[in-house]
């Protein structure tokens, strides 16, 4: 079954017009269609990436002159405790941040999509819009709003908990080392849960009604239809959502910076790779920016993401079965 998608596209015959075209014109046509994308992608993605990697092999002295040092920055970053401790702390926090998204955001997204695709649900498009709405808000606004909601001084969170008799559960979650990171992750989940929901909802709509009808005739209820028929059919989309979450989380920066600042306190409890990179590259307050070390951090981040994506592509993606309807 694997490769059925590829087979279908490969078997597609070349159009008569293209096939009968002289080679020169064919190449010109290719350049016309692909050129702009290749040029923009090269200028704004590939060139900065390679320039960053090159920059990470240099160091600067006090007069600002660059010197080539090879991989020294990477050795320092990964072995010198002054750098490696905050780096591994940020990497671990990032993993926690990702885990919260995988364990909370994606299951809720799947469940919401499952509910939305139930036949006979009223106000479907209202729910869909409302749940998707936060995704379109600026992270700065989301961060600011949640800061206010959870504020021990003016926030509604404490009052709301008191109203249901759980006032003692309240704590300044964003300020405690034990809860700050998870709270931030949950704010992010609240904002972005609409994306997995929409993607999976779209995949669910693609499942032919005959399959569902057949299952119903066989006597399955809604839950078992979802569990045994719909869910396996949308697994490729869930894989896609997972990899998008992974890339997004390991590039995350804005929410933490907005809510906790670049020092990501308390005691770096909410420091992730993005904020660690920002402090290193641009500097912070009296800490001067170190562009070459910052480039090394960015390069390591790139390789972490690359490794994650490769793992997914070669181990997970290959085993996923695709069904063509």
């Amino acid at each position, binding site marked *: 079954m694997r490769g059925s998608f590829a087979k279908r596209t490969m078997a597609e015959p070349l159009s008569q017009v293209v096939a009968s075209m002289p080679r020169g014109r064919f190449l010109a046509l290719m350049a016309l269609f692909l050129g702009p994308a290749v040029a923009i992608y090269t200028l704004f993605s590939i*060139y*900065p990436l390679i*320039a*960053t990697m*090159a*920059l990470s092999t*240099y160091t600067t002295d*006090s*007069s*600002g*002159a*660059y*010197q*080539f040092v090879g991989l020294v920055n990477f050795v320092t970053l990964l072995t010198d405790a*002054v*750098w490696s401790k*905050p780096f591994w702390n940020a990497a671990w926090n990032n993993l926690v941040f990702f885990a919260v998204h995988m364990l909370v955001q994606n299951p809720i997204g799947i469940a919401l999509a499952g509910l939305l695709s139930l036949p006979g649900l009223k106000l479907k498009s209202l729910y869909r819009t409302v749940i998707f709405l936060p995704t379109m808000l600026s992270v700065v606004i989301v961060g600011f709003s949640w*800061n206010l909601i*959870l*504020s*021990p*001084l*003016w926030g509604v969170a404490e009052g709301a908990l008191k109203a249901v008799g759980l006032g003692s559960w309240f*704590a*300044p*979650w*964003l*300020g*405690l*080392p034990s809860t700050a990171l998870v709270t931030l992750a949950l704010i992010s989940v609240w904002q972005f849960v609409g994306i997995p929901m929409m993607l999976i909802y779209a995949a669910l709509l693609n499942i032919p009604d005959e399959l569902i009808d057949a299952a119903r005739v066989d006597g399955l209820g809604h839950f078992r239809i979802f569990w045994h028929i719909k869910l396996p059919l949308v697994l490729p989309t869930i894989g896609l959502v997972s990899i998008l979450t992974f890339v997004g989380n390991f590039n995350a920066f804005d929410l933490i910076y907005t809510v*906790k*600042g*670049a*020092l990501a*306190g*308390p*005691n*770096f409890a909410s420091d992730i790779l993005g904020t660690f990179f920002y*402090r290193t590259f*641009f*500097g*912070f*307050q*009296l*800490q*001067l*920016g170190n*562009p070459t070390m910052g480039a090394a951090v960015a390069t390591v981040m790139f390789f972490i993401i690359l490794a994650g994506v490769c793992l997914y592509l070669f181990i997970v993606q290959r085993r996923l079965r695709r069904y063509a309807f």
Partner: protein
Amino acid sequence: MNKGIAWMRGGVALAALLTGLAAAQAGSLKIESWRNDDADIWNSTIIPAFNKHYPDIKVEFAPSAPADYNAALNARLDGGTAGDLITCRPFDASLQLYQKHQLDGLNDLKGMDNFPDVAKAAWSTDDGKVTFCVPMASVIHGFFYNQDAFKKVGAKPPKTMAEFHEILDKLKKDGTYTPIDLGTADQWEAATMGFQNIGPDYWKGEQGRLALIAGKEKYSDPEYVAVFKELASWAPYMGSGFQAQKYPDSQNLFSLGKAAIYPAGSWDISTFRKDAQFPIGAFPPPLPAGDTDCYISDHTDIGMGVNAASKNKEDAKKFLEWLATPEFAELYANALPGFFPLSKAPVTIKDPLAAEMVGWRKDCKSTIRNSYQILNRGTPNLENELWNVSAQVINGTLAPDAAGKQLQTDLDKWYKPAK
């Protein structure tokens, strides 16, 4: 070598261009600054006053957000799009710009001798030979108090730490006001309004600061640990959930009249003048037991220099010469109460709260924050560490002596004092 990496710098230049700033034209001046709060005052008061002397020079005040200023300025300087006049952070951030030949030396500038050496130190090379920014203002630390709250519990401004704690106890018992208005969420208040505010009395101001640089004193010494112990004792008097209280929260809490004592920086004056409806008083950091000499943090905070790549250095220098006159000192001090001029010329400050704070200079010896000069050149950065441990000490997650030890251990990793 520089040629070989030009293509990498291209990326930086591209980023600078994207921030959307065109190079300045001759005949006009553009000022880079992080004081976006003051944009109105620059445009309505300071620049018109300058134009009375030089009507032909067009001056544009172009501030960035404070937190982004250093990063944005560096990108613009590297990309060649920065303004003609650069507002200078004190010490290393500006020293680095001078060493990279992005700021000009200003030793020959007319009016530079209007400033004492201590004011120029923040913008001079380590050997003191070259000064590259004109000192503009300093900020003073101390405490603001809600006079209504003090009246309610029958308290007078405290002179000693013992009196300070008596008042705190009274305020806590009374329960109307949050005794100490301070949060640790943003971390810097704990270090700046806490540690650097009350600390100078403990480490004897400049004497202790210079001893730290010389390696004769350590952050793990008893006088520094004592500051952390004092800070740790504040937690019970702070608002509930202070761990998540941010700087604007603290400002609001005080201006709404819900807090009694606000550990302050003098720059807060204008905020409270605008928002607070009750009489505000100020007192300098109370003295620890047994001490008689008082010290205040009178921190050189803001200066201005010339972009070495400016196309209009002649006019830029005229502006800086004007900046060094007593006229500017008086204008600036009164337009922005809480920023105190550094020039030797006597200046009358009309705002009573600002006048009170600057009056402390008569009785107490001035010093600057002890983490600013030289000691934050390495990794890990001392100032960031100080924010982190001060917040942790108040949060109760780090013991005072452990905090001192952590600071010194991290400093020892890279700093070798000259013998």
